[in-house]
C-alpha cells in the first residue's frame, strides 16, 4: 500500500488541530485562575477570543426558543459557526470537538494493545441504527427544550461538559455528577465507534442540516477505485465512501478515508456542481 508521506496526511493536521482546540478549552480555566489571563473565556457553548464572540448555533437557538428574545451579540456570534458549517459541513465535530479528541485518544490507546490492537482500533460496529436517528435526536431535543421551557442541551452537551468540568475542577476543586455523561458517551464508543456522534448528537445534527449543501466534500473517483473497501472500515461515522456516500449529509469531513485510500480515489474537492449527485445504483437511503 502506497502510504502517504508523513506531512501530507490530512489526519495528522486534524490531530494537531484537535489537540490545539482541546488545549485551548482545557487550558483556559488554568490561565484564568492562576495567571488572570482573561483573553479567552468560555468553551464551545460560547467562546470569546478577545472581542470575537462565537456562540454555538444549537445553544443560541435554544436560548431564543425558550426566552423568545433576540439578542444581537448572540446572533452575531452564531455567524461564524453557521458559515463554517454552511461551507464545510460538520467540521466542528471532526476537527474541534473535545469529545472527538477524547474518543480519538481512547481509540489510539486501544490501538496500543499488542496482538489485537489494530482490530480493536478499527473494530466492527456491534449496534447499528438507522442514520435517520440523528434527525430524531435533534427534533426530540428541541421539543423537550420547548416543553420544559428551559434549554436542555446547554447543560448536558458533552463538548460543553468537558470544558465545564475542567473549570469546576480548577475553580472549585470538585467535579459534578454531570461528568458521568461524558464518561457514558465515551463508553458508548466501545459498542459502536462514535455512537453518540453518529446517532444522538443534536448539535451534530443541526450542523449537518446546515451543511447539507456544503462546498467542501470528499469526491469519490470510481475509475481509480480498486475496491479494497478499506475506507468503509476506517470511517468513524460508519458510512461507505466506496458506494458514493462520502458526499452525503452524514459525512463529517474527517479525512480518514482520504488518507487511507491506497489509490487516492478519494479527495477533498470544492463542490462546483451545486447538488449532491450520488452515483446510479448506490444506496440512496443516506441522502435526506
Amino acid at each position, binding site marked *: 500500500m502506497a502510504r502517504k508521506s508523513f506531512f501530507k496526511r490530512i489526519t495528522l493536521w486534524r490531530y494537531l488541530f484537535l489537540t490545539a482546540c482541546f488545549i485551548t478549552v482545557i487550558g483556559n480555566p488554568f490561565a484564568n485562575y492562576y495567571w488572570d489571563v482573561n483573553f479567552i473565556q468560555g468553551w464551545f457553548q460560547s467562546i470569546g477570543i478577545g472581542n470575537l464572540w462565537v456562540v454555538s448555533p444549537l445553544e443560541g437557538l435554544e436560548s431564543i426558543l425558550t426566552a423568545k428574545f433576540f439578542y444581537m*451579540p448572540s446572533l452575531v456570534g452564531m455567524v461564524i459557526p453557521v458559515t463554517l458549517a454552511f461551507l464545510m459541513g460538520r467540521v466542528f465535530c471532526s476537527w474541534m470537538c473535545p469529545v472527538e479528541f477524547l474518543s480519538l485518544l481512547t481509540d489510539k490507546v486501544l490501538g496500543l494493545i499488542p496482538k489485537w490492537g489494530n482490530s480493536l482500533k478499527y473494530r466492527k460496529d456491534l449496534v447499528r441504527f438507522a442514520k435517520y436517528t440523528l434527525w430524531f435526536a435533534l427534533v*426530540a431535543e428541541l421539543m423537550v427544550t420547548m416543553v420544559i421551557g428551559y434549554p436542555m442541551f446547554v447543560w448536558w452537551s458533552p463538548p460543553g461538559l468537558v470544558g465545564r468540568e475542567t473549570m469546576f475542577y480548577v475553580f472549585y476543586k470538585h467535579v459534578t455528577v454531570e461528568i458521568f455523561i461524558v464518561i457514558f458517551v465515551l463508553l458508548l464508543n466501545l459498542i459502536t465507534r462514535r455512537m453518540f456522534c453518529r446517532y444522538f448528537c443534536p448539535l451534530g445534527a443541526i450542523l449537518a442540516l446546515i451543511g447539507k449543501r456544503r462546498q467542501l466534500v470528499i469526491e469519490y473517483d470510481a475509475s481509480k477505485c480498486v475496491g479494497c473497501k478499506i475506507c468503509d472500515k476506517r470511517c468513524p461515522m460508519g458510512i461507505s465512501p466506496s458506494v458514493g456516500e462520502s458526499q452525503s449529509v452524514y459525512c463529517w469531513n474527517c479525512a480518514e478515508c482520504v488518507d487511507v485510500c491506497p489509490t487516492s480515489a478519494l479527495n477533498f474537492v470544492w463542490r462546483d456542481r451545486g447538488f449532491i449527485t450520488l452515483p446510479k445504483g448506490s444506496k440512496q437511503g443516506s441522502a435526506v
Partner: protein
Amino acid sequence: MEKERKTDRREFLKVTLGAFIGGALFSSCSLSDLKNPKTMVKSPIKTNVLRPPGAVPEEHFAQKCIRCGRCGEVCPYHCIKYFDVKTGGVFSGTPYVDVMEKPCYLCMKCVYVCPTGSLVPCAKEEVRMGVAVINRQICVTWQQDKTGLMCKTCFNVCPFSGVAIKIDHDFRPYIIEENCTGCGICAYSCIADTYPENNGKKAISIQPIKWKKIKQIKLEDIKKS
C-alpha cells in the same frame, strides 16, 4: 448490504422506540440522583444566594443563559459560582454569587462578556442583585444599650456609603432600599457574628428581589439622595 436494506423500516421502528425508552430511563435515573425532586424546577436563588450583577428577572434567567461559564472565568475575584444538577436541577450551570463566601465587588466585567443577554450591561449604580436587610435584634450598634459597641463596618465598606447605607444620629446604620445594589460586601464583612451572644449570626442578609419593581426606580433618584 442487501439484508440491511430489507430490515430498514423495522430497524427504524426499533430505534425510535428504543431511543424513547432509553431516554425515559436515562432521565429518570438522573432525576433520582437529586436530593429533592421539587428543587428540579424551583429556583435555587434564596437569601444570600443571588444572581450576578445585571441579571434579567429570575423567571427568564435560566431560559436565556446558555451556561457558557464566561462570566465566572472573567470574574477577577472568582466570586461567581455555578449550580450543579444536584442543587439546581434545570438551573444547573447557571451562575450565582454566594455573598457569605465572597461578595460581588461590582467590577462589572461579567456583564460585558455575557453572549445571550442574561447579564445586561449596566452601570454600577443600576445593579440590583438583591437588597440588604439589617436585623436590628442582632446588629451590635442597634443594640448599643446592651452591647455598648458602636460598629460602622457596613457603612465603611459599602461602595455607596452614605447613599445606600446611612447612619442616623445614634450612629445606627439603616438601608436605603432604592439605592442598595445588593452586592453583599456589608453582609460579608458584618462583625456581629463575632459577638458571643449572636451565635455566629450576621446582622445583615441580602434578600433577592424582583428586578422589575426596583428597575422602575430612576437613576436621578439615586443621584439626588
